[in-house]
């Protein structure tokens, strides 16, 4: 891809992120504390590397002349999953994303992103004034709450329908118990394989 397009995309993303961080002082402060370290985000599918330099303003780069202090490597789906997860710290640990270098830096970013709480009302009030922003913000929060509640209810109902009515999936506890058994069986078979190997070595040994 032509670097002009890449630079255009990075410049736009950088502007949006830094603009948003102005309305979340706590997260901005956490990210500034990581300055001047650089984190490389390496997406394997499609191949792409983005460097993030921490500071009072985040700097996004397509190229970095030095070695980044930390590198996150994984496919695009893994990064999308990470971004959509609320607890990014835990999600990063569980994900298929590999961390190289300073894991502290990667975790610092994950922590700051998990606690991200952008004050959209303040952002809006710069354009419309505080009264309109408050009214719009209040209604949006109410709508957001309803949307979240409805989403959770829908998820819960769907799970119950698939599990109890259709009987297509086991209960969570049932599943976990089965996974424990499978894991135990895997360990037993590995132990047995090791014993057989040892026995074979023993039998083949010249007397």
């Amino acid at each position: 891809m032509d670097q002009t397009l890449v630079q255009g995309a990075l410049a736009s993303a950088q502007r949006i992120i830094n603009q948003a961080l102005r309305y979340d002082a706590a997260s901005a402060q956490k990210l500034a504390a990581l300055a001047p370290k650089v984190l490389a985000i390496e997406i394997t599918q499609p191949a792409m590397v983005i460097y993030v330099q921490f500071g009072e303003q985040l700097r996004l780069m397509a190229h970095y002349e030095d070695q980044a202090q930390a590198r996150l490597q994984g496919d695009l789906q893994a990064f999308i999953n990470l971004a959509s997860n609320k607890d990014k710290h835990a999600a990063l640990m569980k994900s298929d994303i590999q961390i190289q270098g300073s894991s502290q830096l990667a975790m610092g970013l994950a922590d700051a992103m998990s606690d991200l709480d952008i004050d959209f009302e303040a952002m809006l009030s710069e354009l419309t004034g505080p009264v309109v922003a408050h009214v719009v913000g209040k209604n949006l929060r109410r709508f957001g709450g309803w949307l979240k509640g409805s989403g959770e209810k829908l998820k819960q109902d769907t799970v119950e329908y698939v599990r109890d009515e259709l009987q297509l999936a086991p209960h969570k506890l049932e599943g976990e118990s089965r996974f424990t058994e499978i894991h135990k069986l895997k360990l037993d078979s590995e132990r047995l394989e090791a014993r057989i190997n040892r026995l074979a070595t023993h039998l083949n040994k010249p007397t």
Partner: protein
Amino acid sequence: MSEKKTTHFGYQTVDAEAKQGKVAEVFHSVAAKYDVMNDLMSFGIHRLWKRFTMEFTGVRKGDSVLDIAGGTGDLTMKFSDLVGPEGKVVLADINDSMLKVGRDRLLDKGYSGNIECVQANAESLPFEDNSFDVVTMAFGLRNVTDKDQALREFNRVLKPGGRLLVLEFSKTNNPLLKKAYDLYSFTALPFMGKLITNDSESYRYLAESIRMHPGQDELKAMFEDADFANCEYHNLTGGIVALHKGIKP
């Protein structure tokens, strides 16, 4: 009697000594509207080319940087942020009109303290040997009369391990893009110049000087001749612009 040395000024052949004055006239004429014209002519893309250049500078806090032909100080501002109060940025330009516009713009934007403005000719820089970590020249080299001499000067003032970055218009290999680019630069550019700065000639010179500037490989060879190591270039926007990099061994 010895023959007078000549060089090109756009498509014209002029005395080497006269080129500097003619280029100075062009930039005196366009200085006040330089930024507006840059944004208009490149549709703002020159900012992305400069952004790309910044990524290759590897500038750190405390570094000293020379932004030669720095004009209105686009790169200088970025360097000033990166080197911090313990670093130093020299904004140098041969043209005092451009330098005044640059200095005023820097002050208006609150940049001072780690920036010096110096009127300097790239062919004979008023700096000691081994004094800069990075030297950059964005859209200036094609206006220099003796480019080889300028490159040698950049090498002299760089510290060992220091890097030179030259961002300049170059040659595109894409025939379609070349056609569109030619049409744009020889018709739209002078027209815009006439409309905004009431000076179409300066912008005709701009288009012609771009065509006369060495191509990617030729400039890379000039870097090597000037004793730069690890020379490389990166094409931007299909080769309309190229960033050349060299390291002083």
